Protein backbone atom coordinates (compact mmCIF):
# COMPACT_ATOMS: atom_id res chain seq x y z
CA UNK A 1 0.00 0.00 0.00
CA UNK A 2 1.46 3.33 -1.04
CA UNK A 3 1.41 6.35 1.19
CA UNK A 4 -1.10 8.02 -1.12
CA UNK A 5 -3.44 5.07 -0.68
CA UNK A 6 -2.99 5.25 3.06
CA UNK A 7 -3.70 8.96 3.00
CA UNK A 8 -6.86 8.54 0.97
CA UNK A 9 -8.19 5.90 3.37
CA UNK A 10 -7.30 8.04 6.34
CA UNK A 11 -9.16 11.01 4.86
CA UNK A 12 -12.14 8.80 4.06
CA UNK A 13 -12.22 7.48 7.63
CA UNK A 14 -12.00 10.95 9.14
CA UNK A 15 -14.79 12.16 6.85
CA UNK A 16 -16.90 9.20 7.98
CA UNK A 17 -16.27 10.01 11.66
CA UNK A 18 -16.96 13.72 11.22
CA UNK A 19 -20.24 12.91 9.45
CA UNK A 20 -21.48 10.13 11.75
CA UNK A 21 -21.53 12.27 14.90
CA UNK A 22 -23.83 15.11 13.81
CA UNK A 23 -25.66 12.55 11.64
CA UNK A 24 -26.68 10.58 14.73
CA UNK A 25 -28.36 13.63 16.23
CA UNK A 26 -29.97 14.59 12.93
CA UNK A 27 -31.52 11.12 12.67
CA UNK A 28 -32.78 11.24 16.26
CA UNK A 29 -34.22 14.70 15.66
CA UNK A 30 -35.93 13.44 12.50
CA UNK A 31 -34.01 16.00 10.47
CA UNK A 32 -32.21 13.70 8.05
CA UNK A 33 -33.34 15.71 5.04
CA UNK A 34 -31.80 18.88 6.45
CA UNK A 35 -28.36 17.37 5.77
CA UNK A 36 -29.32 17.04 2.13
CA UNK A 37 -30.36 20.68 2.06
CA UNK A 38 -27.19 21.87 3.78
CA UNK A 39 -24.90 19.83 1.54
CA UNK A 40 -26.28 21.51 -1.56
CA UNK A 41 -26.79 25.03 -0.41
CA UNK A 42 -23.24 25.52 0.88
CA UNK A 43 -22.20 25.85 -2.76
CA UNK A 44 -22.97 29.58 -3.14
CA UNK A 45 -21.06 30.14 0.12
CA UNK A 46 -18.03 28.36 -1.32
CA UNK A 47 -18.21 30.26 -4.59
CA UNK A 48 -18.62 33.66 -2.97
CA UNK A 49 -15.80 32.80 -0.58
CA UNK A 50 -13.62 31.98 -3.56
CA UNK A 51 -14.43 35.29 -5.27
CA UNK A 52 -13.52 37.21 -2.17
CA UNK A 53 -10.30 35.39 -1.35
CA UNK A 54 -9.24 34.11 -4.79
CA UNK A 55 -7.97 31.07 -2.92
CA UNK A 56 -9.65 27.68 -2.97
CA UNK A 57 -8.01 26.69 0.30
CA UNK A 58 -8.81 29.71 2.39
CA UNK A 59 -10.47 29.00 5.72
CA UNK A 60 -12.89 31.80 4.78
CA UNK A 61 -14.40 29.41 2.26
CA UNK A 62 -15.27 26.95 4.98
CA UNK A 63 -16.67 29.69 7.17
CA UNK A 64 -18.80 31.23 4.43
CA UNK A 65 -20.03 27.84 3.27
CA UNK A 66 -20.99 26.97 6.84
CA UNK A 67 -22.87 30.27 7.10
CA UNK A 68 -24.72 29.35 3.90
CA UNK A 69 -25.65 26.03 5.54
CA UNK A 70 -27.05 27.75 8.60
CA UNK A 71 -28.91 30.25 6.41
CA UNK A 72 -30.59 27.28 4.71
CA UNK A 73 -31.82 25.99 8.05
CA UNK A 74 -33.04 29.44 9.07
CA UNK A 75 -34.85 29.92 5.76
CA UNK A 76 -36.49 26.50 5.93
CA UNK A 77 -37.64 27.13 9.47
CA UNK A 78 -38.87 30.62 8.70
CA UNK A 79 -40.92 29.47 5.71
CA UNK A 80 -42.28 26.56 7.66
CA UNK A 81 -43.24 28.79 10.59
CA UNK A 82 -45.49 30.94 8.41
CA UNK A 83 -47.68 27.85 8.18
CA UNK A 84 -48.20 28.33 4.43
CA UNK A 85 -46.17 25.28 3.38
CA UNK A 86 -44.93 22.19 5.20
CA UNK A 87 -41.32 21.58 6.21
CA UNK A 88 -40.50 19.05 3.47
CA UNK A 89 -41.85 21.47 0.86
CA UNK A 90 -39.77 24.29 2.31
CA UNK A 91 -36.63 22.11 2.19
CA UNK A 92 -37.55 21.05 -1.33
CA UNK A 93 -37.34 24.54 -2.78
CA UNK A 94 -34.83 26.30 -0.51
CA UNK A 95 -31.81 24.14 -1.26
CA UNK A 96 -32.23 23.84 -5.04
CA UNK A 97 -32.65 27.63 -5.13
CA UNK A 98 -29.41 28.24 -3.24
CA UNK A 99 -27.59 25.48 -5.10
CA UNK A 100 -28.62 26.86 -8.46
CA UNK A 101 -27.32 30.30 -7.51
CA UNK A 102 -23.97 28.60 -6.87
CA UNK A 103 -24.13 26.77 -10.20
CA UNK A 104 -24.80 30.00 -12.11
CA UNK A 105 -22.03 31.84 -10.25
CA UNK A 106 -19.55 29.11 -11.22
CA UNK A 107 -20.66 29.02 -14.82
CA UNK A 108 -20.47 32.81 -15.22
CA UNK A 109 -17.26 33.55 -13.37
CA UNK A 110 -15.18 30.60 -12.39
CA UNK A 111 -14.79 28.54 -15.50
CA UNK A 112 -11.04 28.59 -15.24
CA UNK A 113 -10.72 27.16 -11.73
CA UNK A 114 -11.22 23.58 -10.73
CA UNK A 115 -14.48 24.39 -9.00
CA UNK A 116 -16.72 22.55 -11.41
CA UNK A 117 -20.16 21.14 -10.77
CA UNK A 118 -19.06 17.51 -11.17
CA UNK A 119 -16.46 17.83 -8.44
CA UNK A 120 -18.99 19.56 -6.24
CA UNK A 121 -21.57 16.81 -6.59
CA UNK A 122 -19.31 13.79 -6.44
CA UNK A 123 -16.04 14.96 -4.97
CA UNK A 124 -12.73 13.44 -5.95
CA UNK A 125 -11.03 11.66 -3.13
CA UNK A 126 -8.38 10.18 -5.39
CA UNK A 127 -6.92 13.65 -6.02
CA UNK A 128 -6.82 14.63 -2.37
CA UNK A 129 -3.19 13.53 -1.75
CA UNK A 130 -1.95 15.84 -4.57
CA UNK A 131 -2.87 18.93 -2.62
CA UNK A 132 -0.14 19.14 0.02
CA UNK A 133 0.18 21.30 3.09
CA UNK A 134 3.61 22.89 2.89
CA UNK A 135 4.99 24.90 5.77
CA UNK A 136 8.38 26.49 5.08
CA UNK A 137 8.81 23.97 2.29
CA UNK A 138 8.20 20.99 4.58
CA UNK A 139 5.50 18.58 3.44
CA UNK A 140 3.11 17.97 6.33
CA UNK A 141 0.70 15.72 4.43
CA UNK A 142 -2.42 16.21 2.37
CA UNK A 143 -4.26 19.45 3.02
CA UNK A 144 -7.64 17.66 3.20
CA UNK A 145 -6.25 15.49 5.95
CA UNK A 146 -5.55 18.55 8.08
CA UNK A 147 -8.88 20.20 7.31
CA UNK A 148 -11.04 17.19 8.07
CA UNK A 149 -8.80 16.16 10.96
CA UNK A 150 -9.36 19.52 12.64
CA UNK A 151 -13.11 19.22 12.09
CA UNK A 152 -13.11 15.77 13.71
CA UNK A 153 -11.18 17.06 16.72
CA UNK A 154 -13.49 20.06 17.17
CA UNK A 155 -16.59 17.90 16.74
CA UNK A 156 -15.37 15.39 19.32
CA UNK A 157 -14.53 18.11 21.83
CA UNK A 158 -17.96 19.69 21.40
CA UNK A 159 -19.67 16.30 21.62
CA UNK A 160 -17.96 15.39 24.88
CA UNK A 161 -18.47 18.85 26.36
CA UNK A 162 -22.12 19.24 25.44
CA UNK A 163 -23.25 15.62 25.36
CA UNK A 164 -25.72 16.13 28.20
CA UNK A 165 -27.22 19.23 26.58
CA UNK A 166 -27.47 17.58 23.16
CA UNK A 167 -29.14 14.54 24.64
CA UNK A 168 -31.75 16.34 26.70
CA UNK A 169 -32.67 18.84 23.99
CA UNK A 170 -32.96 16.06 21.42
CA UNK A 171 -35.12 13.87 23.63
CA UNK A 172 -37.28 16.56 25.21
CA UNK A 173 -36.93 20.06 23.83
CA UNK A 174 -39.45 21.54 26.24
CA UNK A 175 -37.75 20.08 29.29
CA UNK A 176 -34.42 21.41 28.03
CA UNK A 177 -35.96 24.86 27.76
CA UNK A 178 -37.37 24.75 31.30
CA UNK A 179 -34.01 23.56 32.68
CA UNK A 180 -32.31 26.63 31.27
CA UNK A 181 -30.70 25.05 28.18
CA UNK A 182 -31.84 27.10 25.23
CA UNK A 183 -32.90 24.55 22.60
CA UNK A 184 -32.34 27.24 19.99
CA UNK A 185 -28.66 27.63 20.88
CA UNK A 186 -28.13 23.86 20.82
CA UNK A 187 -30.10 23.52 17.59
CA UNK A 188 -28.04 26.12 15.75
CA UNK A 189 -24.85 24.79 17.31
CA UNK A 190 -25.62 21.38 15.86
CA UNK A 191 -26.59 22.92 12.51
CA UNK A 192 -23.30 24.85 12.41
CA UNK A 193 -21.32 21.68 13.09
CA UNK A 194 -23.30 19.83 10.44
CA UNK A 195 -22.57 22.64 7.98
CA UNK A 196 -18.85 22.83 8.75
CA UNK A 197 -18.57 19.03 8.52
CA UNK A 198 -20.37 19.08 5.20
CA UNK A 199 -17.97 21.67 3.83
CA UNK A 200 -14.99 19.68 5.07
CA UNK A 201 -16.30 16.42 3.66
CA UNK A 202 -17.51 18.02 0.47
CA UNK A 203 -14.11 18.16 -1.18
CA UNK A 204 -13.60 14.47 -0.55
CA UNK A 205 -16.98 12.90 -1.25
CA UNK A 206 -19.15 15.59 -2.80
CA UNK A 207 -22.53 17.02 -1.94
CA UNK A 208 -24.66 13.98 -2.64
CA UNK A 209 -22.62 11.34 -0.86
CA UNK A 210 -21.97 13.38 2.24
CA UNK A 211 -25.66 12.94 3.01
CA UNK A 212 -25.29 9.16 2.90
CA UNK A 213 -22.31 9.34 5.25
CA UNK A 214 -24.31 11.38 7.73
CA UNK A 215 -27.51 9.39 7.68
CA UNK A 216 -26.78 5.74 6.83
CA UNK A 217 -24.33 4.96 9.69
CA UNK A 218 -26.67 6.63 12.21
CA UNK A 219 -29.68 4.77 10.85
CA UNK A 220 -27.77 1.47 11.13
CA UNK A 221 -26.70 2.24 14.68
CA UNK A 222 -30.27 3.17 15.58
CA UNK A 223 -31.40 -0.33 14.62
CA UNK A 224 -28.59 -1.98 16.58
CA UNK A 225 -28.74 -0.38 20.00
CA UNK A 226 -30.92 1.28 22.61
CA UNK A 227 -28.15 3.38 24.08
CA UNK A 228 -27.20 6.80 22.74
CA UNK A 229 -23.47 6.47 23.50
CA UNK A 230 -23.33 3.06 21.83
CA UNK A 231 -25.31 4.47 18.94
CA UNK A 232 -22.64 7.12 18.39
CA UNK A 233 -19.84 4.54 18.60
CA UNK A 234 -21.57 2.11 16.24
CA UNK A 235 -22.32 4.91 13.77
CA UNK A 236 -18.65 5.92 13.78
CA UNK A 237 -17.51 2.32 13.26
CA UNK A 238 -20.06 1.70 10.51
CA UNK A 239 -18.86 4.85 8.75
CA UNK A 240 -15.19 3.93 9.08
CA UNK A 241 -15.79 0.35 7.92
CA UNK A 242 -17.68 1.56 4.85
CA UNK A 243 -14.90 4.02 4.11
CA UNK A 244 -12.17 1.35 4.15
CA UNK A 245 -14.16 -1.39 2.42
CA UNK A 246 -15.41 1.18 -0.09
CA UNK A 247 -11.89 2.28 -0.88
CA UNK A 248 -10.77 -1.26 -1.73
CA UNK A 249 -13.92 -1.99 -3.72
CA UNK A 250 -13.14 1.12 -5.77
CA UNK A 251 -9.53 -0.01 -6.09
CA UNK A 252 -10.45 -3.41 -7.53
CA UNK A 253 -13.31 -2.16 -9.70
CA UNK A 254 -11.31 0.88 -10.76
CA UNK A 255 -14.37 3.00 -9.91
CA UNK A 256 -15.18 6.16 -7.98
CA UNK A 257 -14.10 5.92 -4.34
CA UNK A 258 -16.99 8.00 -3.06
CA UNK A 259 -19.46 5.95 -5.10
CA UNK A 260 -18.05 2.68 -3.77
CA UNK A 261 -18.13 3.92 -0.18
CA UNK A 262 -21.77 4.83 -0.47
CA UNK A 263 -22.61 1.53 -2.13
CA UNK A 264 -20.94 -0.32 0.74
CA UNK A 265 -22.94 1.83 3.17
CA UNK A 266 -26.11 0.88 1.33
CA UNK A 267 -25.29 -2.83 1.45
CA UNK A 268 -24.35 -2.67 5.14
CA UNK A 269 -27.55 -0.80 5.92
CA UNK A 270 -29.61 -3.38 4.04
CA UNK A 271 -27.98 -6.18 6.07
CA UNK A 272 -28.64 -4.39 9.36
CA UNK A 273 -32.18 -3.50 8.29
CA UNK A 274 -32.90 -7.16 7.62
CA UNK A 275 -30.90 -8.91 10.33
CA UNK A 276 -30.63 -6.53 13.31
CA UNK A 277 -31.26 -8.66 16.42
CA UNK A 278 -34.38 -7.02 17.82
CA UNK A 279 -35.24 -4.11 15.54
CA UNK A 280 -34.46 -5.76 12.18
CA UNK A 281 -37.19 -6.60 9.69
CA UNK A 282 -36.87 -10.38 10.03
CA UNK A 283 -36.85 -10.23 13.79
CA UNK A 284 -39.92 -7.96 13.79
CA UNK A 285 -41.82 -10.20 11.38
CA UNK A 286 -40.88 -13.29 13.38
CA UNK A 287 -42.08 -11.64 16.60
CA UNK A 288 -45.34 -10.55 14.99
CA UNK A 289 -45.93 -14.07 13.69
CA UNK A 290 -45.24 -15.55 17.12
CA UNK A 291 -47.50 -13.07 18.85
CA UNK A 292 -50.23 -13.84 16.35
CA UNK A 293 -49.99 -17.56 17.13
CA UNK A 294 -50.04 -16.77 20.83
CA UNK A 295 -53.21 -14.72 20.47
CA UNK A 296 -54.77 -17.61 18.54
CA UNK A 297 -53.78 -19.96 21.32
CA UNK A 298 -55.42 -17.76 23.88
CA UNK A 299 -58.58 -17.43 21.81
CA UNK A 300 -58.72 -21.19 21.53
CA UNK A 301 -58.31 -21.71 25.26
CA UNK A 302 -60.93 -19.09 26.07
CA UNK A 303 -63.27 -21.00 23.81
CA UNK A 304 -62.57 -24.21 25.72
CA UNK A 305 -63.12 -22.47 29.03
CA UNK A 306 -66.39 -20.90 27.91
CA UNK A 307 -67.92 -24.17 26.73
CA UNK A 308 -68.58 -27.13 28.97
CA UNK A 309 -70.66 -28.89 26.27
CA UNK A 310 -68.69 -31.57 24.51
CA UNK A 311 -69.98 -30.75 21.03
CA UNK A 312 -68.09 -27.46 21.19
CA UNK A 313 -64.90 -29.17 22.20
CA UNK A 314 -64.83 -32.04 19.70
CA UNK A 315 -61.54 -32.13 17.86
CA UNK A 316 -63.22 -32.54 14.45
CA UNK A 317 -65.56 -29.64 14.93
CA UNK A 318 -62.97 -27.27 16.21
CA UNK A 319 -62.30 -25.60 12.87
CA UNK A 320 -66.01 -25.00 12.22
CA UNK A 321 -66.69 -23.61 15.63
CA UNK A 322 -63.98 -21.03 15.81
CA UNK A 323 -64.06 -20.51 12.08
CA UNK A 324 -60.40 -21.35 11.44
CA UNK A 325 -58.71 -23.21 8.64
CA UNK A 326 -57.47 -26.76 9.20
CA UNK A 327 -53.79 -25.77 9.25
CA UNK A 328 -54.31 -23.00 11.72
CA UNK A 329 -56.33 -25.23 14.06
CA UNK A 330 -53.62 -27.86 13.95
CA UNK A 331 -50.81 -25.37 14.72
CA UNK A 332 -52.68 -24.02 17.72
CA UNK A 333 -53.67 -27.48 18.92
CA UNK A 334 -50.09 -28.71 18.72
CA UNK A 335 -48.81 -25.66 20.57
CA UNK A 336 -51.34 -26.11 23.36
CA UNK A 337 -50.50 -29.82 23.64
CA UNK A 338 -46.79 -29.14 23.68
CA UNK A 339 -47.20 -26.72 26.55
CA UNK A 340 -49.42 -29.15 28.52
CA UNK A 341 -52.30 -26.69 28.38
CA UNK A 342 -54.85 -29.22 27.12
CA UNK A 343 -55.60 -32.95 27.13
CA UNK A 344 -57.54 -34.90 24.51
CA UNK A 345 -59.81 -37.76 25.62
CA UNK A 346 -61.93 -39.53 23.01
CA UNK A 347 -61.46 -36.61 20.64
CA UNK A 348 -62.82 -34.21 23.26
CA UNK A 349 -60.44 -31.41 24.26
CA UNK A 350 -60.24 -30.23 27.86
CA UNK A 351 -58.08 -27.62 29.58
CA UNK A 352 -55.52 -28.92 32.03
CA UNK A 353 -54.99 -27.20 35.33
CA UNK A 354 -52.07 -25.33 33.85
CA UNK A 355 -54.18 -24.29 30.87
CA UNK A 356 -56.92 -23.11 33.19
CA UNK A 357 -54.51 -21.03 35.22
CA UNK A 358 -52.94 -19.53 32.14
CA UNK A 359 -56.32 -18.59 30.70
CA UNK A 360 -57.49 -16.99 33.94
CA UNK A 361 -54.37 -14.90 34.24
CA UNK A 362 -54.60 -13.86 30.63
CA UNK A 363 -58.21 -12.74 31.08
CA UNK A 364 -57.14 -10.85 34.18
CA UNK A 365 -54.49 -9.08 32.21
CA UNK A 366 -56.76 -8.22 29.32
CA UNK A 367 -59.64 -6.94 31.44
CA UNK A 368 -57.64 -4.93 33.98
CA UNK A 369 -54.79 -4.03 31.64
CA UNK A 370 -52.77 -3.38 34.73
CA UNK A 371 -49.11 -2.77 34.18
CA UNK A 372 -48.21 -4.66 37.34
CA UNK A 373 -50.02 -7.77 36.12
CA UNK A 374 -48.17 -7.79 32.79
CA UNK A 375 -44.81 -7.80 34.51
CA UNK A 376 -45.64 -11.03 36.33
CA UNK A 377 -47.10 -12.53 33.16
CA UNK A 378 -43.92 -11.78 31.30
CA UNK A 379 -41.97 -13.89 33.77
CA UNK A 380 -44.42 -16.78 33.77
CA UNK A 381 -45.53 -17.09 30.18
CA UNK A 382 -44.29 -16.64 26.70
CA UNK A 383 -47.39 -14.82 25.60
CA UNK A 384 -46.63 -11.26 26.61
CA UNK A 385 -42.93 -11.32 26.12
CA UNK A 386 -41.64 -8.14 24.44
Amino acid sequence: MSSAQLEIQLIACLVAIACAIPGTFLVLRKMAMISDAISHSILPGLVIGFFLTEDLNSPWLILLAAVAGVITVVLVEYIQKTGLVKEDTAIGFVFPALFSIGVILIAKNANDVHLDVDAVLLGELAFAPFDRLLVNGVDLGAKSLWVIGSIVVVTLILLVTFFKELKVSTFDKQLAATLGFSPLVIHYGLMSIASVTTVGAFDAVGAILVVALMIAPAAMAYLLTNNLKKMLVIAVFAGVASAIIGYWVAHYLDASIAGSMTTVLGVLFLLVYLFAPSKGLISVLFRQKRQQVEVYLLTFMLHLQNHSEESERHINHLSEHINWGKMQSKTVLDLALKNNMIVINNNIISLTEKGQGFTNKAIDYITTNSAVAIEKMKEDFFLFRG
Partner: protein
Amino acid sequence: METKYAITVDDLTVAYNYKPVLWDIDLAIPEGVLMAIVGPNGAGKSTLIKSILGIIKPIAGSVKIFGKPYKKQFKEVAYVPQKGSVDWDFPTTALDVVMMGTYGSLGWVKRPGQKEKKAALEALEKVGMLSFKSRQISQLSGGQQQRIFLARALVQNASIYLMDEPFQGVDATTEKAIINILKELRKAGKTLIVVHHDLQTVPEYFDWVTFLNVKKIATGPVKDIFNDGNLTKTYGINYKVSVQE
Protein backbone atom coordinates in the same frame (compact mmCIF):
# COMPACT_ATOMS: atom_id res chain seq x y z
CA MET B 1 -51.85 37.20 57.52
CA GLU B 2 -50.62 37.88 54.04
CA THR B 3 -50.80 34.97 51.61
CA LYS B 4 -47.56 34.11 49.86
CA TYR B 5 -48.02 33.44 46.17
CA ALA B 6 -45.97 30.83 44.34
CA ILE B 7 -47.02 32.09 40.94
CA THR B 8 -48.61 35.35 39.89
CA VAL B 9 -49.89 35.86 36.37
CA ASP B 10 -50.76 39.40 35.31
CA ASP B 11 -52.83 40.32 32.26
CA LEU B 12 -51.42 37.41 30.30
CA THR B 13 -52.48 37.18 26.67
CA VAL B 14 -51.10 34.52 24.34
CA ALA B 15 -51.94 34.29 20.66
CA TYR B 16 -51.10 31.82 17.92
CA ASN B 17 -51.20 33.58 14.56
CA TYR B 18 -53.11 36.51 16.05
CA LYS B 19 -55.84 34.29 17.47
CA PRO B 20 -55.88 34.64 21.23
CA VAL B 21 -55.57 31.34 23.05
CA LEU B 22 -55.39 32.93 26.47
CA TRP B 23 -57.01 36.26 27.02
CA ASP B 24 -56.08 38.68 29.79
CA ILE B 25 -55.46 36.08 32.48
CA ASP B 26 -54.93 37.24 36.04
CA LEU B 27 -54.04 34.46 38.40
CA ALA B 28 -52.44 34.28 41.83
CA ILE B 29 -51.62 30.78 42.98
CA PRO B 30 -50.97 30.58 46.71
CA GLU B 31 -47.99 28.59 47.90
CA GLY B 32 -48.71 25.04 49.02
CA VAL B 33 -51.88 24.28 47.03
CA LEU B 34 -52.62 21.25 44.88
CA MET B 35 -54.43 22.91 42.04
CA ALA B 36 -56.30 21.54 39.04
CA ILE B 37 -56.66 23.51 35.83
CA VAL B 38 -59.87 22.42 34.13
CA GLY B 39 -61.53 23.50 30.93
CA PRO B 40 -62.67 22.15 27.57
CA ASN B 41 -60.34 21.20 24.71
CA GLY B 42 -58.69 24.28 23.26
CA ALA B 43 -59.25 26.24 26.46
CA GLY B 44 -55.53 27.02 26.66
CA LYS B 45 -54.66 24.84 29.66
CA SER B 46 -51.35 23.56 28.27
CA THR B 47 -50.62 27.01 26.86
CA LEU B 48 -51.03 28.53 30.32
CA ILE B 49 -48.54 26.08 31.79
CA LYS B 50 -46.07 26.64 28.95
CA SER B 51 -46.39 30.41 29.35
CA ILE B 52 -45.63 30.12 33.06
CA LEU B 53 -42.53 28.10 32.09
CA GLY B 54 -41.47 30.64 29.50
CA ILE B 55 -41.64 28.07 26.68
CA ILE B 56 -44.26 30.24 24.96
CA LYS B 57 -43.82 34.00 24.72
CA PRO B 58 -46.98 35.94 25.51
CA ILE B 59 -48.01 38.99 23.47
CA ALA B 60 -48.91 40.80 26.67
CA GLY B 61 -48.69 40.43 30.41
CA SER B 62 -46.18 38.83 32.73
CA VAL B 63 -45.56 35.82 34.93
CA LYS B 64 -43.68 35.86 38.21
CA ILE B 65 -42.41 32.89 40.18
CA PHE B 66 -42.07 33.86 43.83
CA GLY B 67 -42.00 37.45 42.66
CA LYS B 68 -39.27 37.04 40.04
CA PRO B 69 -39.22 36.18 36.32
CA TYR B 70 -38.99 32.48 35.38
CA LYS B 71 -35.46 32.79 34.00
CA LYS B 72 -34.18 33.62 37.48
CA GLN B 73 -36.26 30.95 39.18
CA PHE B 74 -36.07 27.95 36.88
CA LYS B 75 -34.47 25.81 39.56
CA GLU B 76 -37.60 26.27 41.67
CA VAL B 77 -39.85 24.79 39.00
CA ALA B 78 -40.27 21.24 37.72
CA TYR B 79 -42.29 20.43 34.63
CA VAL B 80 -44.01 17.22 33.62
CA PRO B 81 -44.92 17.56 29.94
CA GLN B 82 -47.55 15.51 28.18
CA LYS B 83 -46.32 11.99 27.63
CA GLY B 84 -46.95 12.31 23.90
CA SER B 85 -44.59 15.27 23.57
CA VAL B 86 -41.47 13.12 23.28
CA ASP B 87 -40.33 10.23 21.10
CA TRP B 88 -40.23 7.16 23.35
CA ASP B 89 -38.13 5.29 20.77
CA PHE B 90 -35.20 7.51 21.76
CA PRO B 91 -32.23 5.25 22.60
CA THR B 92 -32.07 5.59 26.36
CA THR B 93 -33.10 3.95 29.63
CA ALA B 94 -35.59 4.86 32.35
CA LEU B 95 -32.79 5.82 34.75
CA ASP B 96 -31.19 8.08 32.17
CA VAL B 97 -34.44 9.95 31.55
CA VAL B 98 -34.86 10.53 35.29
CA MET B 99 -31.25 11.73 35.50
CA MET B 100 -32.16 14.46 33.00
CA GLY B 101 -34.08 16.10 35.84
CA THR B 102 -30.76 16.84 37.55
CA TYR B 103 -29.31 18.65 34.52
CA GLY B 104 -30.91 21.96 35.47
CA SER B 105 -29.09 22.26 38.78
CA LEU B 106 -25.86 21.09 37.13
CA GLY B 107 -25.97 23.81 34.52
CA TRP B 108 -24.01 23.80 31.27
CA VAL B 109 -21.12 21.38 30.66
CA LYS B 110 -20.94 19.83 34.14
CA ARG B 111 -21.74 16.15 34.01
CA PRO B 112 -23.97 14.16 36.38
CA GLY B 113 -22.08 12.00 38.87
CA GLN B 114 -22.81 9.61 41.73
CA LYS B 115 -24.86 12.16 43.68
CA GLU B 116 -27.19 12.71 40.75
CA LYS B 117 -27.46 8.99 40.10
CA LYS B 118 -28.39 8.36 43.71
CA ALA B 119 -31.10 11.04 43.57
CA ALA B 120 -32.49 9.52 40.37
CA LEU B 121 -32.60 6.03 41.89
CA GLU B 122 -34.43 7.38 44.94
CA ALA B 123 -36.98 9.09 42.71
CA LEU B 124 -37.46 5.87 40.74
CA GLU B 125 -38.08 4.03 43.97
CA LYS B 126 -40.62 6.64 45.08
CA VAL B 127 -42.68 6.09 41.93
CA GLY B 128 -42.31 2.31 42.18
CA MET B 129 -40.13 1.97 39.08
CA LEU B 130 -36.76 1.02 40.55
CA SER B 131 -36.82 -2.47 39.05
CA PHE B 132 -37.26 -0.90 35.59
CA LYS B 133 -34.25 1.40 35.82
CA SER B 134 -32.28 -0.24 33.01
CA ARG B 135 -35.22 -0.78 30.72
CA GLN B 136 -35.32 0.92 27.34
CA ILE B 137 -38.06 3.55 27.53
CA SER B 138 -40.03 2.24 24.55
CA GLN B 139 -40.43 -1.04 26.45
CA LEU B 140 -42.45 0.67 29.19
CA SER B 141 -46.24 0.84 29.32
CA GLY B 142 -47.99 4.21 29.15
CA GLY B 143 -48.48 4.29 32.91
CA GLN B 144 -44.83 3.45 33.51
CA GLN B 145 -43.70 6.19 31.14
CA GLN B 146 -45.81 8.66 33.07
CA ARG B 147 -44.21 7.50 36.34
CA ILE B 148 -40.78 8.05 34.80
CA PHE B 149 -41.75 11.60 33.92
CA LEU B 150 -42.94 12.15 37.47
CA ALA B 151 -39.69 10.74 38.86
CA ARG B 152 -37.77 13.09 36.57
CA ALA B 153 -39.67 16.03 38.08
CA LEU B 154 -39.07 14.71 41.61
CA VAL B 155 -35.27 14.73 41.25
CA GLN B 156 -35.44 18.40 40.35
CA ASN B 157 -36.36 18.93 44.00
CA ALA B 158 -38.31 22.04 43.07
CA SER B 159 -40.82 24.12 45.00
CA ILE B 160 -43.36 24.24 42.20
CA TYR B 161 -44.51 21.35 40.00
CA LEU B 162 -46.36 21.98 36.75
CA MET B 163 -47.93 18.90 35.20
CA ASP B 164 -49.68 18.59 31.86
CA GLU B 165 -52.27 15.82 32.05
CA PRO B 166 -50.29 13.34 34.16
CA PHE B 167 -53.27 10.97 34.25
CA GLN B 168 -53.68 10.76 30.48
CA GLY B 169 -53.80 7.13 29.40
CA VAL B 170 -52.60 5.60 32.67
CA ASP B 171 -54.18 2.67 34.47
CA ALA B 172 -56.08 3.05 37.74
CA THR B 173 -53.18 1.79 39.88
CA THR B 174 -50.79 4.35 38.41
CA GLU B 175 -53.35 7.14 38.81
CA LYS B 176 -53.67 6.31 42.51
CA ALA B 177 -49.90 6.07 42.92
CA ILE B 178 -49.36 9.43 41.23
CA ILE B 179 -52.03 11.25 43.23
CA ASN B 180 -50.59 9.88 46.46
CA ILE B 181 -47.19 11.28 45.57
CA LEU B 182 -48.74 14.63 44.67
CA LYS B 183 -50.53 14.78 48.01
CA GLU B 184 -47.29 13.94 49.79
CA LEU B 185 -45.53 16.76 47.95
CA ARG B 186 -48.23 19.19 49.00
CA LYS B 187 -47.80 18.11 52.60
CA ALA B 188 -44.12 18.92 52.22
CA GLY B 189 -45.16 22.46 51.31
CA LYS B 190 -44.77 22.22 47.54
CA THR B 191 -47.11 23.93 45.10
CA LEU B 192 -48.59 21.69 42.41
CA ILE B 193 -50.46 22.74 39.31
CA VAL B 194 -52.05 19.98 37.27
CA VAL B 195 -53.93 20.13 33.97
CA HIS B 196 -56.77 17.73 34.65
CA HIS B 197 -59.57 16.24 32.58
CA ASP B 198 -61.64 14.05 34.84
CA LEU B 199 -64.04 16.44 36.56
CA GLN B 200 -65.40 13.65 38.77
CA THR B 201 -62.12 13.34 40.65
CA VAL B 202 -61.42 17.05 41.15
CA PRO B 203 -62.92 17.26 44.68
CA GLU B 204 -61.18 14.06 45.72
CA TYR B 205 -57.73 14.93 44.39
CA PHE B 206 -57.37 18.69 44.61
CA ASP B 207 -57.86 21.49 47.12
CA TRP B 208 -57.63 24.36 44.64
CA VAL B 209 -59.05 24.76 41.14
CA THR B 210 -58.87 27.12 38.19
CA PHE B 211 -61.58 27.11 35.55
CA LEU B 212 -60.21 28.17 32.22
CA ASN B 213 -61.71 28.72 28.80
CA VAL B 214 -59.51 31.19 26.93
CA LYS B 215 -60.43 33.58 29.73
CA LYS B 216 -60.17 32.76 33.39
CA ILE B 217 -63.62 31.81 34.67
CA ALA B 218 -62.81 31.30 38.35
CA THR B 219 -60.03 30.31 40.68
CA GLY B 220 -60.09 29.38 44.33
CA PRO B 221 -60.61 26.58 46.85
CA VAL B 222 -62.41 23.53 45.44
CA LYS B 223 -64.93 23.55 48.27
CA ASP B 224 -65.98 27.13 47.49
CA ILE B 225 -66.02 27.33 43.74
CA PHE B 226 -66.28 23.82 42.29
CA ASN B 227 -69.97 24.02 41.46
CA ASP B 228 -72.38 23.62 38.58
CA GLY B 229 -72.47 27.36 37.96
CA ASN B 230 -68.74 27.60 37.22
CA LEU B 231 -68.73 24.32 35.31
CA THR B 232 -71.53 25.55 33.09
CA LYS B 233 -69.74 28.86 32.52
CA THR B 234 -66.57 26.98 31.56
CA TYR B 235 -67.97 24.20 29.41
CA GLY B 236 -70.87 26.16 27.95
CA ILE B 237 -73.41 23.42 28.49
CA ASN B 238 -75.52 22.68 31.50
CA TYR B 239 -73.13 20.75 33.65
CA LYS B 240 -74.07 18.66 36.63
CA VAL B 241 -71.39 17.08 38.74
CA SER B 242 -72.19 15.59 42.08
CA VAL B 243 -69.68 17.06 44.46
CA GLN B 244 -68.79 14.65 47.21
CA GLU B 245 -67.94 16.04 50.59
